[in-house]
């Protein structure tokens, strides 16, 4: 998936967010650390162009809310910076890849510790399947058929023209 495909996916997501949120005055974007942060920035600039007003963007680290912390080396904790009140807002959680759904579950818990959004929606660049929880995205850039141990490597640069998504198939056998 090259830069053009990433751009197309971002535009599709932004279009769907606009269709689902006419006017957009109560919409805020929250990128999940680390993969969702840059995607949230892309989406905000698309939406600002369409709506003609600024769209607040924050980022959220879900590490402290994960359910597997004693089964792995302690993951690095990244900053959470949400400099606006989420209460009463439509919060669109943004992540690069939707896989097991556990990150999204942790993100909803982390977010509701910060306030009470009117509703939470989920936007992802890639849905790669293999859900372990009953969670689905509201806005999807593209769906990838993957094996459970394949790697989806999403590289989102400051400029969308330098971005790409690579599916690394696990070695067979």
């Amino acid at each position: 998936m090259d830069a053009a495909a990433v751009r197309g996916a971002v535009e599709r997501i932004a279009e769907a967010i606009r269709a689902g949120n006419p006017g957009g005055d109560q919409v805020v974007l929250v990128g999940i650390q680390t993969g969702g942060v840059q995607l949230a920035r892309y989406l905000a600039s698309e939406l600002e162009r369409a709506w003609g007003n600024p769209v607040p963007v924050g980022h959220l680290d879900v590490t402290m809310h994960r359910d597997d912390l004693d089964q792995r080396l302690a993951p690095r904790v990244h900053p959470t910076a949400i400099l606006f009140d989420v209460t009463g807002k439509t919060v669109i959680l943004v992540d690069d890849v939707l896989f097991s759904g556990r990150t999204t579950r942790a993100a909803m818990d982390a977010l509701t510790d910060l306030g009470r959004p009117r509703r939470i929606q989920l936007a992802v660049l890639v849905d790669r399947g293999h859900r372990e929880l009953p969670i689905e995205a509201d806005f999807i850039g593209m769906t990838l058929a993957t094996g459970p141990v394949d790697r989806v490597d999403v590289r989102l640069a400051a400029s969308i023209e330098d971005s790409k998504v690579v599916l690394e198939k696990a070695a067979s056998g």
Partner: protein
Amino acid sequence: MRWTRKDLLDLQSLSADEILAVLDTAREFKAVGERTIKKVPALRGKTVVNLFVEPSTRTRISFELAAQRLSADVINFTAEASSLRKGETLKDTARNLEALNADFIIIRHSAAGAPHFLARVLGAHVVNAGDGAHEHPTQGLLDVFTMREKKGRVAGLKVTVVGDILYSRVARSNVWALRRLGAEVTLCGPPTLVPPAFQRMGCRVTTDLRLAIADADVINLLRIQHERQRKTMFPSLGEYTSLFGISRARLREARPDVLIMHPGPINRGVEVDSDVADGGHSVILEQVTNGLAVRMAVLYLINGGESSGVAN
């Protein structure tokens, strides 16, 4: 840098990267403490035992609150109310705690090395909350965290530690962390309390307070520990204060942006005057706030298990 240690026993054995990993993690946990909901579920379902064989209030409370803010359950076990008074050995006490499925044991003990012993015999995570005159690693980490937060760096900082160095585990933990991160450390106090042997840890040692504070970025004052001195190590508290106490007049000889730190509890009028302890240079209460964040970070990091699985 991934944290792989099961325990936090001392700072002497930590690399610079490991120390920085704790400090970076603590920064994010400090932010949690500034929210309306100050609690995260990282240690949900875990049991933390505060095994304080030597009395302590502030460190115990800090660990207790740190564990609670990580959603762990906490048991406090103090020397006064324990079977250690009845002759039970430390190992038996600890094994009993483990039989209750304790996941973390925070130990303070008058014997140096007690935490290391527990870490060898127990599967639970062990944190040293002060062992004799050996180390107090979380105090060293919170001191360095505070310096880094206030000064923006640790490497190259000139840090002067004043007071009872000989009996101080706080001084030792400070020295290990500061030297590892590239700070310049000066130790100052009466010759009986600042042995020249500390020069082997890479420190400048002096009995001249004026020299010690002249170019210091940070002055870390240690409490004169009456209870730890088996015999009098200086003629009188009054003489100590006149030579090593920090008054406002003395502070004028230091840099205008110097930080005044103290691990507490303060002997007002002995090692520091009230108007300095409560003045604009003092970060003593911020050290308390930062201690909580550092202890949350330590518990979070050592909780990590084996590496496995796929990203995303």
